[in-house]
């Protein structure tokens, strides 16, 4: 096992800049999510770490060792592909044992270790099947078993769950997390699904246009993003702009939004917006009024779409909203200052 580090990675494809200078540390034994919209360069970065692409400049280190000149097959990585890429001419057991066979492990040991890996992904007894006889979720597990049976230094996952339906995806998220914890292998995975990134990772790096926007533990990135892009990409956010004042931010209509620090732009998560039915916000909170434009019942929560002097706002209320708050009604909002996040850009 080993940590991975990239330093100043740049890569151009046919004139377009895919990566514009990325430096990142992937801690040993961690589960790192590379999150970004399509075209952000996250897959290119993963393929550079694997060795399928070569950076125009910059360093890639696995376990402190510079792997720039090392071909893929000598990097001791494990990779799960979006299409799973199971070998159709081999059985499940042969697929899983492939890396051991390439390394010259004796046949008997190969069989034992492949069976262990299949048990780890809960597919014991399916070794003699062919890939085309398996369901999508089972193929995913085979691909995972095949990638970890060689005890790689790093496990790379390229959109591992995108081909599965929602129920299966949620089940596999739990499984992936369990397996990664049991094996303890440094894992880097690429996704465009923010929920997947939040669920699986213990650190997330958000990429945009070939640059790292922000990096940190999911809780921190969600609760205290520094940029508008991170705030909006990781879940819903109300973005408010105005003039920086000592108390926080002065909205265009003159109202003061209390924040931990002066700011010209802030983000407020919809679930941080609460109702103050009697018009009195707790001491130190910001009290605002806004007009309801839509009311959406979503089971455990009710989402209110609001408008205040041309600015759209959203409030996500647990346990429903008062019946009076229908479109056109006036809502009294209370916002705690510690949930108002100053943004730098």
């Amino acid at each position, binding site marked *: 096992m080993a940590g991975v580090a990239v330093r100043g990675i740049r890569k151009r494809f046919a004139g377009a800049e895919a990566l514009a200078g990325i430096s990142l540390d992937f801690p040993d034994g961690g589960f790192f999510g590379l999150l970004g919209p399509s075209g952000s360069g996250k897959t290119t970065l993963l393929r550079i770490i*694997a060795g*399928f692409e070569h950076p125009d400049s910059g360093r890639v280190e696995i376990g402190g060792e510079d792997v720039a000149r090392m*071909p*893929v*097959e*000598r990097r*001791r*990585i*494990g*990779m799960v*592909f*979006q*299409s799973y*890429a*199971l*070998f*159709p*001419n081999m059985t499940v057991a042969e697929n899983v044992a*492939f*890396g051991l*066979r*390439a*390394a010259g492990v004796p046949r008997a040991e190969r069989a034992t270790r492949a069976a262990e890996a299949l048990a780890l992904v809960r597919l014991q007894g399916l070794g003699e099947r062919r890939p085309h006889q398996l369901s999508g979720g089972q193929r995913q597990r085979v691909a995972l078993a*095949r*990638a970890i049976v*060689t005890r790689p230094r790093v496990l*790379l996952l390229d959109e591992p769950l995108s081909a599965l339906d929602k129920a299966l995806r949620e089940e596999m998220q739990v499984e992936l997390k369990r397996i990664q914890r049991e094996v303890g292998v440094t894992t880097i995975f690429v996704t465009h699904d923010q929920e997947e990134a939040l669920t699986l990772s213990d650190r997330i790096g958000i990429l945009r246009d070939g640059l790292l926007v922000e990096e940190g533990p999911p809780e921190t990135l969600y609760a205290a993003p520094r940029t508008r892009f991170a705030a909006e990409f990781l879940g819903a956010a109300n973005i408010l702009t105005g003039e920086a004042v000592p108390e926080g931010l002065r909205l265009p209509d003159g109202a003061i939004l209390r924040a931990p620090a002066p700011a010209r732009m802030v983000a407020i998560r919809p679930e941080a917006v609460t109702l103050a039915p009697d018009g009195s916000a707790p001491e130190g909170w910001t009290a605002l009024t806004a007009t309801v434009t839509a009311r959406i019942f979503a089971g455990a929560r009710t989402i209110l779409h609001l408008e205040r002097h041309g600015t759209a706002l959203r409030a996500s209320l647990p346990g429903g909203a008062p019946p009076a708050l229908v479109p056109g009604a006036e809502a009294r909002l209370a916002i705690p200052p510690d949930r108002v996040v100053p943004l730098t850009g």
Partner: protein
Amino acid sequence: MTAVLNAIGRGWLILTLAFLYLPILVMAAMSFNASPFYRLPVEFSTRWYAALMGNAALKQAAWNSVWIALVTTAIATALGTAAAIGLHRHRFPGRALLQAALYPPIAIPWLITGTAMLVFFYFLGIPRGSPAVVVGHVALAIPYVVIVVGARLKGFDPALEEAARSLGARPWQVAAWVTLPYLAPAVIAAALFAFAVSFDQFVISYFLAAPGDTTLPVEIYAAIRKGFTPEVNAVSTIVIGLSMALMLLVARLARFGEVR
């Protein structure tokens, strides 16, 4: 109504098959007929097969055809498979043109191709003879190989090779364990095609072979011109038997390729 149409359809099919196979069946029957004058009823005899064994020219020509076809198959399959992989994997200037250039040789009449080769080889100073015949046959067979192998490659997921490499497989292991097993049905089918193209070839062989040391189709043609003997029926029956066995094998492998 449907019943009538079905009957017509079935009748049509039988007529077509009769049209295709009756001449061959008659020839096969006559090769086993003792009479050299096609007298009926057929009186079973293997005398023409025995006579064939004594016909040195036909035997030599048959042997020539077999080894030329085998050499052609080996060269054309290797070059064609490599070309198909190259065309599939790499993007380079002129690739589309190269790919398009593969098809015309299949459509150009062999008589024209043969004349062109004869003139070209004469120009280069390459004498007529078996080496020239092999070169000509290889040139004819390569497009078939590229097309058959190329069609299979279209369905190949490049992630398979990447997966193999990520698991530590060296380039030869990737080729031997992943790429070639996937391509195998197509490569075998392509090889059988190449063999058939060479073995059935008349015009090119006729133009490029040295007089007196030629291939089976050319020798059969010469024999017929000299005066027909039922030995030709015998050798043709053997060739047809072998060709049909080969083509059935191709059909099987081609289908095998689809299911996988």
